[in-house]
C-alpha cells in the first residue's frame, strides 16, 4: 500500500501542509515499512490550475490513498475521477502522526470537496 500526503518539508517528521494543490511537498509513504519518498509539489508554484496539476501528479504515482488538509473543487473532481480515496488530517501535526492515525482508522474520509460548495471562487484562479 502507498499513501501520499502534503507536507511542509521533505521528511516523515515534517509538519503537514494543509493545502493540497499548493502544499510544498508530496510525501509517498508505505504505512507498513514507513519507507518514504518526497517530491516537490508541481502545483505549488503554478500560476493557475494547481489542484489539477497536483492531482495529475498524484494519479501518475500509482498510489492508493491521498491525505491532505483541504481539497479544492478541481482537485476533488480530478481525484474522484481517478477513484482515489481522500482523507483529511484533522488535528495531526506531523506526517508520522498522520500515518499512525490513518492506520488506527482515526482520519475522516472526504465525501465532497472540502470547501467546494461554498467557495468556488478560489478554484484554478491562483
Amino acid at each position, binding site marked *: 500500500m502507498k499513501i501520499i500526503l502534503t507536507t511542509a518539508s521533505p521528511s516523515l517528521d515534517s509538519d503537514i501542509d494543509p493545502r493540497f494543490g499548493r502544499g510544498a511537498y508530496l510525501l509517498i509513504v508505505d504505512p507498513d515499512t514507513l519507507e518514504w519518498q518526497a517530491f516537490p509539489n508541481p502545483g505549488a508554484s503554478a500560476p493557475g490550475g494547481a489542484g*489539477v496539476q497536483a492531482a495529475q501528479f498524484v*494519479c501518475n504515482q500509482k498510489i492508493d490513498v491521498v491525505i491532505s488538509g483541504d481539497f479544492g473543487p478541481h482537485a476533488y473532481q480530478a481525484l474522484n475521477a*481517478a477513484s482515489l480515496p481522500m482523507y483529511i488530517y484533522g488535528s495531526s501535526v506531523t506526517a508520522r502522526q498522520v500515518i499512525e492515525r490513518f492506520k488506527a482508522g482515526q482520519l475522516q474520509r472526504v465525501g465532497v470537496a472540502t470547501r467546494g460548495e461554498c467557495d468556488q471562487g478560489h478554484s484554478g484562479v491562483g
Partner: protein
Amino acid sequence: MIIAVASGKGGTGKTTIATSLALSLAADRKQDLPASSPPLFLDCDVEAPNGHLFLKPVFLERQEVGILIPQVDEAKCSHCGKCADACQYHAIAVLGKKTLVFPQLCHGCGSCTLMCPEGAISETLDVLGVLERGPTSSGVDFARGVLNIGEPMAVPVIRQLKRWANPKFGQVVIVDASPGTSCPVVEAVRGADYLLLVTEPTPFGLHDLKLAVQVARELNIPAGVVINRDQDAPSIDHKYPLVDDFCEHEGLPVLMRIPFERRIAEGIAQGNNLVEIHPETILLFQQLFIQIVNGVQMSLYPASV
C-alpha cells in the same frame, strides 16, 4: 490612431479621462484637430465596464464571445496523456481511465486537439461574455465587452472586442483599460500608439504608476501622465510631489492636471462627465489630444523634432 488609457491603481480616473477625451474630440471644433471624425470608444474593462454610464450609448449590435474548449470522446480516448502533457494550463487531466476537462482553466489554444493521436477531441464554444456596440448622442461610437459573472478569463473577450469593433478609416480609437498591470491590461493596450497613464498624487498612485510605466516600456508604447485629484491648491497642505519627481526622472511628460475638487466628485457621482461639469475643460482635452499626437510623432520620427 489608438490611444489607450491605463493607470495601475484603480479609481484614479481612467474612465473620467477617457470619456472626457472622447467627448471633447466629438465636440464642436474649437481648434484645428488632427482627427477626422468623432472617435470610437472601446471599453476594455470587461470585468467592470462603466464607460456607458457617461457616454450613454444605444446598443444596436450584440454578439456572444468565448473560446473553443476541448470535448473528449471517451469511446475513442486511449488515455495516453498527450493532451494533459501539452496543456500548460492544466485544463485537461488524464486520471486513470477518465479524461477530464476544466473549462475555467482552458485558454482555448487548441494544443490538446492537435496532440491527440486518436482524434478523440473535438472543440465546442464556451461562452465567456458578450460584445455590444452602438452610437451615442454625442457622435462618439461606442463598443464594449462584458465578461460573464464567475468567469475568470477576461483576455479572450478583450482580444475579440478589439477585432470586432472595426473603426472607420482614420477614426481615433480610445481604449479604456482595466486597473492593474496584468494580462487584461496588456491585451487592452497592446497595439496602441500612445498610452495615457492616469494617476493621483498618493503613495499608492505612484507605486502603481511605476508598474504601468514598465508595461509601456515593455510594449514599446510612448506614454504620458495625467495627474488627477492634484493637490496643488493653496487650501491643501499635503502636497505629494513624488509623482512629479518620478515623471521628471523618467522623462514622462505630465500632460494634464485635474484639481482635487468637491464639485467634480459630486458631478461624477451623479453620472455627469468632467466636460459637463467643467465645459471649459473641452479645450484642455483638445490640447491634450494635440500633445498626444505630437508624442506619437516624436516616438516615430525622433530625428525630425
